[in-house]
């Protein structure tokens, strides 16, 4: 647990450095992990309960939204550290989850607006064998929904010290 805590502190420190760079100098491009999805073949609850200091908390099903919105999870189960109050320790969790495999990773490349826009991406970007497909709602796409890789390029508002618009290229 101490090792896991130390690792988490180290990770927090690195995140802080990255945020500082983002706020001060506004680099040309910043990479972010937008979404990650994985699965386990067996119920991970027992493995999580095996982590010293981690106690099982509330667990309940999530009812499907009545208005037909996307339901990301069917059930939630909170785990909380007895001493620090931390809700989930990512690094420890991945180590103990039986046969954990990632099934989806979304990376976002946020470019500064001075260097990038959708036109620039359309004209100059190549994404391996992925082909451009028709744009939808001011978002350009490369690759199919069922392909191993899908890229989307769009403009988005980035809230920093001063609010400004930027362009993002997202690989999923």
């Amino acid at each position: 647990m101490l090792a896991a805590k130390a690792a988490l502190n180290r990770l927090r420190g690195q995140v802080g450095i990255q945020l500082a760079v983002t706020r001060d100098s506004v680099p040309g491009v910043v990479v972010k992990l937008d979404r990650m999805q994985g699965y386990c073949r067996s119920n991970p609850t027992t493995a999580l309960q095996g982590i010293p200091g981690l106690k099982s908390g509330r667990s309940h099903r999530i009812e499907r939204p009545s208005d037909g919105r996307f339901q990301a999870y069917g059930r939630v189960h909170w785990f909380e550290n007895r001493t620090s109050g931390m809700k989930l320790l990512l690094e420890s969790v991945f180590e103990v989850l039986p046969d954990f495999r990632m099934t989806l990773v979304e990376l976002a490349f946020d470019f500064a607006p001075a260097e990038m826009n959708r036109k620039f991406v359309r004209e100059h970007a190549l994404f391996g064998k992925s082909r451009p497909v028709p744009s939808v709602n001011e978002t350009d796409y490369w690759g199919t929904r069922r392909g191993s890789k899908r890229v989307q390029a769009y403009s988005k508002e980035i809230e920093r010290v001063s609010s400004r618009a930027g362009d993002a290229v997202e690989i999923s």
Partner: protein
Amino acid sequence: MRSRFLKLYEIKDPYDFGKLVEILPERHIKFMKFNERKLVERLRGMGFSPRKTWEILEDVRLLEGDVWATLNYLRQELGMKNTQRFLDRLDTNGALIDALKQWTAMWLVAPKKLGKK
């Protein structure tokens, strides 16, 4: 990146994110600029007449610098192979690699499995 992609490059968990620095740039994401001069040289080498070369260049210019569309045209219409040779790298690729390195540095690369020595 979907399951098939992750399986192909053996990215099983976040500890493997470091591999993305080698995998994504150049192979899966890159910013290039089409170089007309290289195309003209190649067309001359292939024995195209100046008139035909000019016609091809006009067709290419209609695509307004769209790199993917231009390469597709050269492959489909002229039967050219290795069309990547007509491209010049843009500086954006360097910034992209730096940003990716910075991000992957946030993730641990050598996991220590609990309960194993």
